């Protein structure tokens, strides 16, 4: 393990820096409540199990995690999955990627995320409230990704996203929900990956840059409000070696929020650390463990920080089902949420051909 840490010295050094000197500039959290919260939870069972640390070497769902990783893949991939999270949150996602020889890769990704059974909502009579029928919260995110293999060590990728959100606002005269929606085209994710050696990968991923959604308030569209999801920058690493004679992978993601959605510097910058491991215990079976969303905001001794230090702890498995269908993998991940309101689970299948 000591050898492992030494080899991953770049990330260790970076994390140490942020945990010490960098912590002073990162004070009270401010990300919560800013636009794009639904874009922040990890997608995919593998990422969920590894604490959300999948940016440097996603086994699949590269369009979401790191578009630069599409080009290195030799096969076409189809991935589909679903998951439920605490408090009624639900995911449904799919991706198709393929290589355009010799150096280009392309991918299409779609994610439904929301709460199809948005319940426990009440009307606005405080004294005698009435529970309302279930509503739903819907978001759709699609990405079209391009990836380019510059050298055997350097890859780059970019994707353009289309965003859609729909929220309930009131009931109509028949008691049916009235919804308001927003949409936007042009959200940009960009990634660069540097393969230091066969074991170590380093990557930088910028997410949700230039994202803009527009809410139509008036029915005639004359009154609109812009909603700009918060951009983030992730520094990530992946280290692969052997542990106890088994294939082993250790990943680290450090995600930072520096600017708000209108490019003003946040008063309180914020960073989150996630890390995970994967052990290939048998040929067709892998175990994953992770801890994610550790907020680094420099207030370790404050009550609020300790009370809210509910990082996510994940675990999961991966099974190679090639014995049934060639190229088929199944993944299952489970994780605590940050509120201890329940658990998050995801199940997905990856098919390579």
């Amino acid at each position, binding site marked *: 393990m000591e050898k492992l840490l030494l080899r991953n010295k770049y990330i260790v050094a970076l994390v140490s820096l942020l945990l010490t000197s960098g912590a002073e500039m990162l004070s*009270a*959290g*401010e*990300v*919560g*409540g*800013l*636009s*794009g*919260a*639904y874009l*922040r*939870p990890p997608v995919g069972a593998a990422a969920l199990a590894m604490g959300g640390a999948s940016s440097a070497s996603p086994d699949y769902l590269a369009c979401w995690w790191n578009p630069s990783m599409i080009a290195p893949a030799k096969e076409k991939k189809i991935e589909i999955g679903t998951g439920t999270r605490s*408090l*009624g*949150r639900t995911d449904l996602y799919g991706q198709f990627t393929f290589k355009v020889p010799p150096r280009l890769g392309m991918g299409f990704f779609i994610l439904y995320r*929301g*709460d199809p059974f*948005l*319940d*426990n*909502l*009440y*009307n*606005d*009579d*405080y*004294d*005698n*409230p*009435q*529970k*309302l029928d279930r*509503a739903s*919260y819907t978001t759709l995110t699609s990405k079209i990704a391009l990836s380019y293999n510059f050298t055997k060590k350097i890859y780059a990728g970019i994707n353009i996203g289309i965003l859609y*959100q729909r*929220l*309930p*606002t*009131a*009931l*109509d*005269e*028949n*008691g049916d929900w009235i919804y*308001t929606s*927003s949409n936007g085209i042009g959200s940009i994710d960009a990634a660069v990956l540097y393969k230091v050696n066969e074991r170590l990968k380093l990557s930088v991923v910028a997410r949700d840059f230039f994202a803009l959604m527009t*809410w139509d*308030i008036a029915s005639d569209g004359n009154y609109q409000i812009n*909603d700009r999801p918060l951009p983030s920058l992730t520094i990530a690493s992946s280290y692969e070696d052997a542990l106890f004679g088994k294939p082993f992978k250790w990943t680290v993601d450090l995600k930072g929020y520096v600017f708000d959605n209108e490019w003003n510097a946040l*008063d309180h910058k914020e960073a989150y650390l996630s890390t995970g491991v994967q052990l290939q215990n048998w040929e067709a079976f892998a175990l994953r463990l992770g801890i994610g969303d550790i907020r680094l905001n420099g207030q370790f001794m404050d*009550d*609020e920080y300790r*009370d*809210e230090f*509910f990082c996510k702890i994940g675990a999961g498995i991966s099974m190679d089902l090639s014995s049934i269908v060639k190229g088929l993998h199944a993944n299952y991940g489970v994780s605590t*949420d*940050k*509120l201890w*309101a329940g658990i998050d689970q995801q199940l997905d299948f990856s098919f390579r051909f």
Partner: protein
Amino acid sequence: MNKLMIATFGLIALCCGAWGQNSGFFSNWITGIASSGDTISLLSGKSDKITNNFNFAVSYIPKSDSAYVANDLNWKSFVFPKNIKPQSFTYGGGYSVVVFEFDTLDKDRMNTVTLIHHKTDKTSDFTIPWNKAIIADSSKWVYSTDVAYLDNAFYFACRAGGIVKWDISTDKKTALLPGVAGEVSLDTIKGITDSTGWINELEVSNNQLIATSSSAIWVYSPQGDTWTEYPKTSADPSLTIRSFIYAVTDPYTLPHALYSVANVTLPGADTVIMMKYSVKEAGWKPVLDHAIAGLTFATKGYYYTYFEDDSTNCKVYRDTLGDTAVQYKPLPVDAYYLPERLKTGVENPQILEIYFSATTDSSGVLYVGTTNGFYISRNEIPGKSSDLLQCVKRITPVKKGLKEAFASPGILKRVEDNSNDVVRFVYCLSKNANVTIRIYDYNNDLVKTIIEKQPRKSGTENAEYGRSNDKYKDVWDGTTAGGRPCAPGVYYFKITTDIGEHAFGKIVVAK
């Protein structure tokens, strides 16, 4: 009301779709107080931003019985779409009648919907399109603006310039025209479009019907079938009357003087004042220069009033001017801020309706309808009373032990970032505890700490209305800890305590 009428109304009610169905919705906004005989009838109503409904209810209480305080008034509730709002309310012969304004998109095509409910009726309610059940006309000016009850008949003021009389014992509908003796057919009032002749307000006082148009006040005496006109004649040279708003007589003091509230022009200003009609000088004289939102007369010349610019204050005046004196700025003999006469002193209700019912020559019962319930002073001595105003309101209980915790309302609309809307967290603890409430976004990132380790009482011990939350502190305005407006989305709140009870809930922040 005979069976045929009930059947007719029931059929019409079916035609009205979902209107008027009893859903159990109820609001503590007491918008109407009406009295006849030994019964007080109450109307509550408030529009709901989330359901887009107007929720209202009627209730009946005997004047002599104090048990209704404990019995929660036994409300009968109804729901209408939000574009139907109560315009006037009266009670008589066992029936509560509400005239609703049906606000269509075309402002010139307003209609009237009338609800009639009998106090003994526990099972059904009737919504009656005015132009079908009361008057068979749908021309655009034939809609009702007010209703009053007198001698077994309801009188509906019509924009078309007349008054429809509906005798509930015979179901006979006839029309009255101000200044014209005798009853005429309903067709007579059809098509009158002169706005100065529109009847805007009806009041019943001293067995007389008082009809107010913008140009004149008419007092009708059914016994003699006589009309008396009080035109816009000012008895004060500095006063020019532009239009009347409403009029009423003092029912307790002889002679029963006629008062009106009117738009007037005084030197240097157009304003709204209260006036009294001087019989001797055959003209109106000012008694109170203030825009009155509502008033009720009490014994010995006192009257209670509240103003449009301050509906939390109730002021008591006494008119001792006689028939000739002019007065613009009298000092009230008593003035009180409603919360000062409440036990809690916490609430800040707005007065919506006020009514005094005399029980002796010098005292009576004061009923006050507010945005925070129904208030009663049982031994009100005008100008002297220190009797507490007792509040009657319905608060739906919440399951204790944080088994039921929610945000009210569940949807926070932030159309503008400077919106004053808030959500309140409603919960009930099983024991006194220190409570923390935090808001999280979809990714469970902390948005804001609302309260942290604040003591809250259990719902069964001392907490107001069986709820543990502080109505004014356990509140979220939709902003982050840094004061930014939150982005639209679904948010979660978490309530934790030091007694192990905790709860989660959802809030939608929508643009």
